[in-house]
């Protein structure tokens, strides 16, 4: 803006207009990016702001005053705490199991030549490209036909299922750049395969495992559709929000949403900053 204003003072008249236009043309993409970021952040801002709202009546739609009560009294709504606990339990267990299974598959895909690679890739790819509603519905018919009681276990089974493919893709991406000479060196020095895996491979792929764990955790804790089909009487946090939305979601829902968002963002920003610092230090070295 300041450049345009300066240009306007120097050259009055139509050329000023032209240079203003040149400025806009040069920065149009930056201005657009700024607007796009605002668009992406707008609903998030609303969620955070309305966690501090003091609504009159049931509906938390209109701003009617600032309060910290919702935060102090975050589990003041019946059912919210147990829903949150269930969501965390499921996300933790499901991400651990899915990452373990996914890592093994990724190791096989990157390290070994074997028959049936095509089928394996297809089996990994298909769940990612199937609409969630079909994933949820098909599991529902399985459980119904086998008369399995819906609850904790059916939710867990479902979450592990849709997380595995994400874990495979994440770990595989990191494994491809892996230097296998390190393992060969360990074996040459007398380590057996298990010792090599534990002492060399595992520490090196640990960041990939962590990434897969976090991704699975995030996907699991956010899942609504598949869970909705297979939860039976149990309520996870997204299911709680769904139920609450029909009668007017209380501001505590925004409190939890804001909390989850903050934890995730702090984690990601730290990760990015650490990465940037590491890159800079290797660049300097």
């Amino acid at each position, binding site marked *: 803006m300041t450049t345009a204003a300066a240009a306007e003072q120097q050259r009055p008249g139509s050329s000023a207009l032209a240079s203003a236009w040149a400025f806009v043309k040069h920065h149009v*993409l*930056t201005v*657009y*990016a700024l607007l*796009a*970021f605002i*668009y*992406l952040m*707008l*609903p*998030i801002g*609303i969620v955070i702001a309305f966690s501090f709202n003091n609504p009159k009546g049931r509906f938390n*739609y*209109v701003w009617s005053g600032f309060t910290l009560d919702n935060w102090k009294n975050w589990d003041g709504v019946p059912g919210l705490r147990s829903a949150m606990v269930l969501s965390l339990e499921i996300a933790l267990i499901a991400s651990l199991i899915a990452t373990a*299974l*996914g890592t*093994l*598959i990724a190791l*096989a895909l990157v*390290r*070994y030549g*074997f028959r049936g690679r095509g089928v394996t890739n297809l*089996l990994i790819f*298909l769940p990612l*490209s199937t*609409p*969630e*509603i*079909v*994933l949820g*519905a*098909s*599991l529902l*018919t*399985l459980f*119904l*036909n086998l008369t399995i009681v819906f609850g904790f276990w059916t939710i867990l089974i479902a979450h*592990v299922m849709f997380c*595995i493919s994400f874990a*495979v893709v994440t770990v595989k991406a990191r494994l491809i750049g892996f230097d296998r000479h390190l393992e060969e060196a360990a074996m040459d020095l007398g380590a*057996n*395969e*298990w010792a090599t895996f534990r002492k060399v491979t595992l520490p090196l792929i640990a960041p990939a495992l962590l990434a897969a764990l976090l991704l699975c955790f*995030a996907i699991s*804790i956010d899942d*609504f*559709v598949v869970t909705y*089909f297979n939860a039976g009487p149990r309520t996870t*946090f*997204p299911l709680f*929000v*769904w139920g609450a939305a029909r009668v007017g979601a209380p501001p505590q829902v925004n409190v939890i*949403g804001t909390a*989850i*968002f903050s934890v*995730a963002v702090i984690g*990601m920003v730290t990760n*990015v*900053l650490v990465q*940037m610092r590491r890159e800079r230090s290797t660049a300097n070295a």
Partner: protein
Amino acid sequence: MGFLHRHRNLTPYLLLGPGLLYLAIFFVVPLGFLAYQSLESGNFDVGYSFTWAWGNYWDAIQNYRGHFIRSLEYAGIATILALVFAYPLAYWIAFRGGRWKNLLLLFIVAPFFVTYLIRTLAWETILADQGPVVSVLRDVGILGHDGRLLATSTAVVAGITYNFFPFMALPLYVSLEQIDERLIEAAQDLYASKWKAFLRITLPLSLPGVVAGTLLTFIPAAGDFINAQLLGSPQNHMIGNVIQSKFLELTDYPAAAAMSFVLMAAILLMVAIYARAVGTEKLTG
């Protein structure tokens, strides 16, 4: 580990085994059950029996043609909108982001850190009749005096576009980021205008990202029912809403199962048409 050493070619299968078995039991087998269920007749009270009831498919298409078409239409429009909005943003981050790229990417994925349902509810707040957007649009005259956004197809498409935006932007960014900028400089050195260099170099090289982004957006969008439920009216309901209610409220399992497969088939058909169109474009371009 001596066992593994003696049977080296068994190792990949041992690694694959647990994960693929899990996917077979809880992804492939359920699809089989869903297919079986879709050919049953009867109802919840008297029970279902398998009768090769292909009529279920016919009924699904006949009775819910509108819902199917609307689903593909909404998902298609939202995908195009997301592509148009996301491309310049991904371009800006990839080419102008400098060392802040990773941090800027955080803005794109940030919506994912707010629970899906909560961010959709936030759009409900933003687009509400008392909200700022509606009042501005009414003042400007785009909306009539009692015009509204909530409970319209506009709101549903806007919600879908926002919710699946990161699925579009991330693959776009990845493919744009890999482009060697020297190619673009070379084109400009050879007297291509900026625009022409973009059309002939940047755009074709980013096509893999465009394809990945459109598929990742379109497929989940076509099966979505949350946006239609929370932001639309029953006139805007998509096929996901019907499948969901037939499974979980009306317990009309065979019809719902048949619809799930019609949905998958419709999506596959669209993807095939799209893949063919993009493929030929690549050949001629």
